[in-house]
């Protein structure tokens, strides 16, 4: 009797496993149309996202387009070694990090402040009007944003220079003067994105329990104290999440915008990794070298995100993944 139960108990998991397998198979068959739905999208990600990841191996080759990845010579770390010995690259890296810093330290807090301000507005009417106006620039392409600022700051007939002259200053060549590149860059980022950036903060502010504010008022807290002790702590998680995303993506945000502002006069401060990969890779045909640079950048981005994510989890926040 005992033997029988022992046998039965060993047989049970086997039976269950095969039953489970059957069920999975059944479930898969029942959901076959769902797989058909996913297939095109999955194919898209494999071809246009994962195939290029495979293509990264050309950064270890001297890639020749007519030989293809299979037929090109392996050169090991040659391109990566070149990267770190080239003074050009160090300058580009510096420029990239500076723009990254401008994004983190100057741009990043602005949508938070704007959202706090919008939240303090009394009437819904004006809140909605201000929001609508602030969102508009986000829908304009970088070409449009850069074009608008170019017609405004140009030396001949640009409104900004006309105003400078009107107030008795000298005209400034904003477009060719390297020291104006970074201010123009970050002002354009703020103009285009700050309003749109408020959406997510406003949403998380709206989710705060109004009782908290009431309690704070009972304790005699004014507006600023309520913001400081209730609103900001309540949206801290969202701020941290967005901060992580920003850190991961900011190395990528540059290309279009910077490329449009780039010219032969400001190259020294304006050339960043993305624009360099484009010119060195596609214009000059140095496929392997510029792929190595891009690879380097993607890896740094990934490490940054993972590190910051880990830190935020240690601090007791949710993190991105």
């Amino acid at each position, binding site marked *: 009797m005992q033997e029988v139960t022992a046998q039965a108990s060993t047989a049970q998991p086997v039976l269950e496993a095969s039953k489970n397998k059957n069920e999975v198979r059944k*479930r898969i068959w029942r*959901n076959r*149309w*769902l*797989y058909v*739905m*996913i297939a*095109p*999208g*999955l194919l*898209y*990600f494999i071809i*246009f*996202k*994962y*195939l*290029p990841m*495979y293509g990264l191996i050309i950064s270890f080759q001297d890639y020749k387009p007519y030989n293809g990845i299979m037929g090109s010579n392996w050169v090991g770390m040659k391109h990566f070694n070149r990267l770190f010995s080239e003074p050009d690259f160090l300058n580009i890296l510096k420029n990239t990090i500076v723009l990254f810093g401008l994004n983190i330290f100057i741009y990043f807090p602005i949508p938070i402040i*704007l959202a706090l301000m919008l939240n*303090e*507005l009394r009437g819904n009417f004006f809140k909605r009007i*201000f929001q609508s*106006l*602030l*969102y*508009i620039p986000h*829908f*304009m*392409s*970088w*070409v*449009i944003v*850069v*074009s*608008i600022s*170019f*017609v*405004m700051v*140009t*030396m001949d007939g640009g409104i900004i220079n*006309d*105003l400078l002259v009107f107030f008795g200053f000298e005209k400034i060549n904003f*477009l060719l003067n390297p020291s104006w590149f970074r201010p123009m860059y970050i002002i354009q980022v703020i103009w285009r994105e700050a309003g749109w950036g408020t*959406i997510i903060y406003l949403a998380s502010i709206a989710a705060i329990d109004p009782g908290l504010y009431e309690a704070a*008022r009972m304790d005699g807290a*004014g*507006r600023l104290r309520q913001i400081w002790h209730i609103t900001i702590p309540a949206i801290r998680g969202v701020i941290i999440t967005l901060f992580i995303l920003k850190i*991961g993506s900011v190395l990528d945000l540059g290309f*279009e915008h910077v490329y449009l502002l780039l010219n*032969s006069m400001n190259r020294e401060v304006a050339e960043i990794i993305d624009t360099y*990969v484009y010119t060195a*890779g*596609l214009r000059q045909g140095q*496929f392997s070298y*510029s*792929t190595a640079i*891009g*690879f380097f950048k993607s890896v740094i981005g*990934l490490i940054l*995100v993972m590190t910051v994510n880990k830190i935020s989890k240690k601090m007791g926040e949710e993190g991105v993944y």
Partner: protein
Amino acid sequence: MVEDRSFTGRLFAALNFTLLAIIALITVLPFIHVVAGSFTTSAELAASKFVLIPKVWSFEAYKFIFSTNTIFKAMGVSIGVTLVGTLVSMFLTSLMAYGLARRDLDGRKVVNFMVVFTMLFHGGLIPTFLVVKELGMIDTYAALIIPSAISAFNMIILKNFFQNIPEGLEESAKIDGCNDFGILFKIVLPLSMPAMATISLFYAVTYWNTYLTAILYLDDSAKWPIQVLLRQIVVLASGLDHSATLDGVVPPPDQTIKMAVIVVATLPILMVYPFLQKHFAKGALLGSMKG
């Protein structure tokens, strides 16, 4: 927020309102300046500096830019790419999002991770270019659409939205003999109009603003969308390099003409904006809360 009627409360509110009004004004003034400038003469623009409402109305700039086929053609390309691209993207994105939204699907976690991972790491410009080239898409309009057909971010927003639709609805449709395609098109999509409108707008704006993919994949200037033409007319002709002006010999176009091209390149978005604004604010919230 309950009103604070104390003096400091009122002062705070007044200051806050004024500051926001100024910021909102600064946000729209540059564009108003450009629109007004495009509808006046060069002389008027030079004389009155900042134009908000033109004193002298003139359509010269528009007559000029539409006197050749170039702008019409570029507008046509942009409109075509926007319409076809948005349709293709919405079709692929909603199919995939719905599949992944169903919790009983084996393997969805793997696919989900694959999608999220592409947001953290990617092969970069050159390898992507080589793939597009190998597929023979260089100098085709397909290159403006297919390589960016699905945005991982948009797909995840839509997936989260679909996940919030009560499963009971799908169950009862299934009992009535509906297959998964039927459930998606007859039940889920009609219930998801705010999200669909939002994501469509996001895609449409991206396609209308197509610039990077165009300069990467199109060598033939006859196929240029409006954004590339805009850069050619305004950015390159802004007295940067002499070598970079239109042909090297042609003087840079008038301010009014540049402004008119900017307006033409922006107008379609501004026309769609008021209609979809209600939807997208709501939809973006839904997405961002869960995302």
